[in-house]
């Protein structure tokens, strides 16, 4: 609790304060003051635009995130455990990992048309290799001692996954989740920019067209605020719970 409280009530206000002072000093439309951004936010919220676009983007992010995490985790674990599969898929992974989002999005839009499915697919394909690369490292460093234990005691695959692997993969999952949410949201923005008529990416593009920095910041911060909520309300409690065993161990060390 203390940690998130500190973050919420001390650091964030400080940041905003700093920004305010900076904006006030510089006094340029290229760095609008917090008040100006808040104003834009309120205006957009009052018109319902903010909610509409945010909701659309969040839906895309959520769907792509779930798909990408699921596939990426599966592929990553499989590649980390099976040497032949790793050899087989590694070049493909490097390929997909480094295929520019732009190129992929364009190709998919061109092949499948400017449809929602193409957009989601583009994001998922972009993110899966990232998750896979992280989880592969996790799967490679699973403790062989505990593997032996699970084997000797005849753990079922599900039990092994849940009780032996998951806790060891947890930090990798968290890294993939945090990085993943961010990456997906960035790709969704590009996807929306190139071929969707709604969503935050579309709005950012519009704001960008006229160099409306307040608009850019308002929409970005709205999304960031939501991620911050997820972080404080979901990820950090989850992390605290999942790593309790670790802290109790040190407590006394």
């Amino acid at each position, binding site marked *: 609790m203390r940690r998130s409280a500190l973050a919420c009530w001390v650091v964030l206000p400080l940041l905003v304060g700093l920004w305010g002072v900076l904006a006030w000093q510089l006094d340029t439309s290229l760095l609008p003051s917090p008040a100006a951004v808040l104003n834009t936010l309120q205006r957009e919220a009052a018109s319902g635009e903010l909610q509409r676009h945010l909701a659309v983007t969040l839906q895309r992010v959520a769907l792509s995130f779930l798909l990408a995490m699921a596939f990426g985790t599966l592929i990553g674990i499989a590649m980390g455990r099976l040497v032949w599969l790793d050899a087989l898929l590694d070049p493909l992974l490097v390929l997909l990992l480094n295929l520019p989002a732009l190129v992929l999005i364009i190709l998919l839009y061109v092949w499948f048309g400017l449809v929602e499915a193409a957009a989601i697919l583009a994001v998922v394909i972009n993110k899966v290799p990232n998750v896979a690369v992280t989880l592969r490292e996790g799967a490679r460093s699973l403790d062989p001692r505990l593997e032996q234990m699970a*084997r000797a*005691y005849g753990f079922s695959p599900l039990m092994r996954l849940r009780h032996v692997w998951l806790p060891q993969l947890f930090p990798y999952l968290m890294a993939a989740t945090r990085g993943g949410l961010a990456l997906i949201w960035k790709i969704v923005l590009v996807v929306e920019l190139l071929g969707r008529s709604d969503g935050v990416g579309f709005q950012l593009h519009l704001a960008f067209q006229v160099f409306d920095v307040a608009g850019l910041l308002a929409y970005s911060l709205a999304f960031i605020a939501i991620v911050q909520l997820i972080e404080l309300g979901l990820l950090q409690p989850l992390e605290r719970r999942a790593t309790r*065993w670790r802290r109790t161990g040190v407590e006394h060390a």
Partner: protein
Amino acid sequence: MPEFVKSEFVVPAGHAILAPMSLKVAPGDHICLLGPSGIGKTTLLNRLTGLERGQPRPTLRIGYLFQEHRLLPWRTLRDNLRLVGVGRDQVEPLLARVGLEQAADRYPDQLSLGMARRAALARCLAMRPDLLLLDEPFASLDPHRADELKRLIRTLLKQFPAMAMICVTHEARDAEALANRIWYLAGRPAHLRYDARLDAETHAGLARRLDALGRQASGESLSIES
């Protein structure tokens, strides 16, 4: 009850550490396995459990107390036991038998090493195994606690006469207390230098016999090919 009436375990030629051998273990065999440090005792137990690369899982129910406790550090003792099939209300009585009555909700890292090893012992006893493998069950325990656990194991062995046990130890005392058969592993590659049933007569001379075996083994230069 166990499918292995005279189970036979084979170590093939070409094994890196063990000499080729074929071991017959019968139900009711209570074997103490002794041998110099680093000779291959743990390797042999792993082999019997089917843990070596490319081995199939044996069809026996095996309860294996590893030399390190190998409890899941992220699960409390209760959850560690529940995972191997201990019933909800069996957890505490089971822990009580190894002197951990109040540690059910602790994580392994919150225990002393001796306590964690006792919890691991409880876990492998809870399996009701056909074959019980114990890798130095009494290391890190004070003599009183060790005696208590020896009694516990003896009771269990009596209760399930078809159960077989192989217990790695370095102490003649442990062998005297638990075994009806002795294996002594020595040489490089390691082979069974001594495999004998204990009866009243051999029992008496056991300590001396083991001492002699140990002397002989430690006399050999333990060359380790790297």
